[in-house]
């Protein structure tokens, strides 16, 4: 037997390795969006206006946040959701308001969609006491539990079992609620996902697990870090699954409406691979050398906000000036939020010790 040449071995990640002209394909393949119009999806014209306003708010909130970050108004990490707004919006409109949502650190859009005000969100980014988490969490840890938004979590995959636990408690209490756990494509390689999927189906937890596959786990293309298509993770655990176009809010809404109904009725977990694209870097310090400008532009042609805007105009639901009116309102809301955050106080020094324990006078070792 001939000896293998020494240079035959390398550990460059090939993942599912679909190649074109010798190069691994990057980004994601978007499935066709739904052909249904809003009425057949059960959405009213008011719903559409609210959806548009919400998506535009998420976009402008983050664009302004980015400016403030660059001006040095706050520190820490800033992971932007820009490009993925259809997923949070389609989901929140499809689920019941008391269904439990939990996500990873790319969480601003989710928080805004679940009722964190622009003021509370921006103030949290600035680390102010008026922030949604009182300045204790920052960008990665938005939360509003009274609205069943359990927060953003910063350890990749660490919140996936917690999402299962939210569903466990709902089943235990027979309260009719389901949980929906969102994470990025990097998290699909974590053991936490696999352990949770197995247990979720073993115990028939009413839980939706959804990967927002934006094509890149930081700088590594999804197609380079995972063997098999991500959606196929579900097969190993006998879970139902589907691939969804995450650049189209109607497609997300339709899928979430169907899937949430099924999960609620059957009390069985469901895995969704929602394909999308993030326009910005992984965080603010990402030179984005792993992808081309052309690739980004291709996905931007499918922009979820522009797409909904065209629909609103084409279907004569809103006129140009009415859209502009919404946009101006949002613009003002976001500018006000920046001012609010800037003018808010930092937490009092005593707040350092608050919220560690539930007791009024907890023990602190020193």
């Amino acid at each position, binding site marked *: 037997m001939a000896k293998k040449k020494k240079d035959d071995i390398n550990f460059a990640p090939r993942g599912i390795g679909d190649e074109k002209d010798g190069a691994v394909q990057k980004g994601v393949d978007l499935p066709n969006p739904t052909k249904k119009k809003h009425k057949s999806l059960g959405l009213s014209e008011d719903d559409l206006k609210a959806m548009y306003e919400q998506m535009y708010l998420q976009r402008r909130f983050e664009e302004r946040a980015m400016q403030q970050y660059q001006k040095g108004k706050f520190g820490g990490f800033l992971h932007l959701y820009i490009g993925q707004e259809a997923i949070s919006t389609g989901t929140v409109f499809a689920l019941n308001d008391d269904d439990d949502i939990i996500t990873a650190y790319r969480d601003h859009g989710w928080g805004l969609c679940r009722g964190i005000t622009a003021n509370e969100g921006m103030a949290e980014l600035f680390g102010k006491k008026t922030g949604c988490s009182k300045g204790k969490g920052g960008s990665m840890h938005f939360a509003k*539990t009274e609205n069943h938004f359990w927060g953003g979590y910063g350890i990749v995959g660490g919140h996936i079992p917690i999402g299962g636990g939210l569903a466990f408690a709902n089943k235990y209490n027979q309260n009719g609620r389901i949980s929906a756990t969102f994470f990025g494509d990097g998290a699909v390689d974590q053991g936490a996902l696999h352990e*949770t999927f197995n247990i979720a189906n073993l115990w028939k937890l009413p839980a939706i697990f959804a990967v927002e596959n934006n094509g890149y786990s930081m700088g590594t293309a999804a197609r380079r870090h995972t063997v098999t298509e991500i959606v196929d993770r579900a097969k190993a655990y006998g879970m139902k699954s589907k691939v969804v176009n995450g650049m189209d809010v109607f497609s997300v809404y339709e899928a979430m409406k169907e899937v949430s109904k099924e999960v609620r009725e059957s009390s069985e977990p469901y895995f969704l691979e929602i394909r999308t694209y993030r326009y910005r870097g992984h965080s603010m310090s990402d030179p984005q050398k792993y992808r081309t400008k052309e690739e980004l532009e291709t996905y931007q042609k499918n922009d979820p906000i522009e797409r909904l805007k065209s629909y609103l105009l084409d279907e004569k639901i809103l006129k140009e000036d009415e859209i502009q009116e919404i946009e101006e309102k949002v613009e003002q809301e976001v500018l006000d939020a920046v001012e609010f955050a800037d003018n808010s106080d930092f937490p009092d020094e005593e707040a350092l010790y608050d919220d560690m324990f539930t007791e009024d006078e907890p023990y602190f070792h020193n």
Partner: protein
Amino acid sequence: MAELQFREAIREAIDEEMAREEKVFIMGEEVAEYNGAYKATEGLLDKYGYKRVIDTPISELGFAGIGVGAAMNGLRPIVEFMTFNFAVLAADQIINHASKAGYMTGGQISMPIVFRGPNASAGQLGATHSVAYDSMYAHFPGLKVIYTSEPDDAKGLLKSAIRDDNPVLFMESEQMYGMKGEVSEEEDYIIPIGKGKIKREGSDVTVVAHGKMYHVAKQAAAQLEKDGVDVEIIDPRTVKPLDLPLIVESIKKTNRCVVVDEAHPFAGFAAEIGFLIQREAFDYLDAPVQRVTLPDVNAPFAKNLFDAWLPDAKQVIDAVNQVTYRN
């Protein structure tokens, strides 16, 4: 008082709390049909059914995280680990999530969860089954850590742990499950978390020892008594919050202290107690504080090496002799 095995005291605590509060449930490997790897949950499945006594797959990270999510969403989970040596696989959930979610969200989340199971070594099980984790978890803010030495403490403190609205690690020992002790028959017997106990009164030297090491200290004290040395043993019972005043008061009386700890020496419980004593009781000390710990070495398998590795009464006696200048 009733004489109970350690495992029976634990079972009574869980049983009473499950009967008292519907939101309390227990999950872990072999807790249900098998009746517990160490029989701590024997009979609970028959009494409470599969909804509240739940067998898990061998997925420590997964089921610990499900416990964390369930606690956030209103339940009061007891998560049993077959040993805390396996809980290392779940450390992300305990250290990164259970202890931090409340703080990071500005107090929006409460975390009433108990992680419990045997801690430290249990004979010749090799290096990965033999580590004492109480000091390590006590390092992290947001966690309470209990490692008891006797059935009575275990019952009263486990009931407190289950009622606590914060994450609590409750540690036991494979080698103590069969140990018998008098347990209070007081109805709803509760011992507050953070209160230590003088387990043996004495005037010559204070020995601080908890968990399995309490029994080593007790053995040493019996021997030393024959030599005319009167040992006071303080069992802190709770590692964190620590009952420091109890230790300091004892040292004010004895002026000498030995700490016996089942962890490795670096940055462990003994190191911490040593620091605190020099700060709080410096002027009362007649000798430097000594400690008896595991060496900075992994647990060996061979019987002779294992015996040399684990702190024993002789090492405690030597340390006491040192602080009393009897050698």
